[in-house]
């Protein structure tokens, strides 16, 4: 009645199947976490493209000082965006983490883009955004008239967790607005 070999076979098969299921779970977990990281990378590069494009236009069609205010995570400047001969006022600013309370991530913030006073949130997920201002020699400056390039450093995180993980990606670059080089 008692077949030790049969029981042993079932036991070994059970161990194998459990191990396979475990491996499968790990692979699925990794795929999802990698997917979140890819999503974060795509998002941060999209935001970088947008910032590089807009900040590259600082001072276009403007006579005089183009940068109206310069902060660590907010920047207001003049640029003739639609090339209608009238300078537009553009503002980029990072909101507060508390504004994005509907997400699981407690640190993510809205990125706001304001044109002539009409501000809209254009991205959600930045956890940090820093502008650094450089003069013609590449030295940091706080004088708006001396700014020739602007460093951008930011980190994006996904809004939701998976198994305690967030997708995360950072980006850093510097933009040299053509109109500022003429000053």
């Amino acid at each position, binding site marked *: 009645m008692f077949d030790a070999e049969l029981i042993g076979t079932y036991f070994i098969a059970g161990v194998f199947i459990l191990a396979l299921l475990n*491996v499968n779970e790990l692979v699925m977990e990794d795929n999802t976490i990698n997917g979140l990281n890819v999503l974060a990378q795509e998002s941060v590069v999209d935001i970088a493209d947008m910032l590089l494009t807009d900040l590259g236009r600082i001072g276009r069609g403007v006579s005089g000082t183009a940068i109206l205010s310069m902060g660590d995570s907010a920047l207001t400047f003049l640029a003739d965006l639609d090339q209608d001969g009238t300078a537009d006022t553009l503002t980029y600013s990072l909101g507060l983490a508390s504004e994005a309370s509907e997400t699981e991530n407690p640190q993510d913030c809205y990125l706001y883009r304001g044109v002539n006073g009409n501000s809209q949130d254009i991205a959600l997920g930045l956890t940090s955004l820093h502008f650094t201002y450089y003069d013609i020699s590449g030295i940091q400056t706080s004088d708006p008239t001396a700014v020739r390039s602007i460093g951008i450093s930011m980190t994006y995180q996904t809004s939701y967790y998976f198994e305690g993980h967030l997708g995360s990606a950072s980006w850093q670059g510097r933009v040299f607005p053509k109109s500022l080089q003429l000053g």
Partner: protein
Amino acid sequence: MGRTEMLILLGAIAIFGRFTLTINHSRYTNEFWIIQTEAQSNASALVAQYLDEAAQRAFDEATIDGAFLSGGTADLTASSLLGVESGETYPNFDDVDDYGSLSLTVTGANGITYQIQGRVCYVSSADPTTPQTTQTYYKKLTITVSSEFMTSSHAFSRIFSYYHVG
């Protein structure tokens, strides 16, 4: 358990072991590629920064402050002397070819460390790929970026030309 069953069991363990190792290798490779993609994205932004920065500088030591080259290309820095002049250090470079001596270690926002190297040469308008031993009105700046998180280094080039607004 007979010898045959034992052999089958050992075979199963070997196949399963190999399978697990393959899966683990794939997991590691996938994660490395994710990190590498981020490293490459930041590396290209870094290189663009140095190329754009060089574009703000004079074409040559002889053309600083918009000086006119009355002697033509003969007034330009000799090919063998391209690079940073004595006493100049980054970021206080004043002409394009100073960036040929660029050698920096930079830590990106993602914490990844990059090695940045510059190389500069004269090229001709007819052949922008072959370095020229004599001065021309075209300088080719190549910035190479590498990192332990990138399987190979990446080089980006830009050609700068001399012009004078009289």
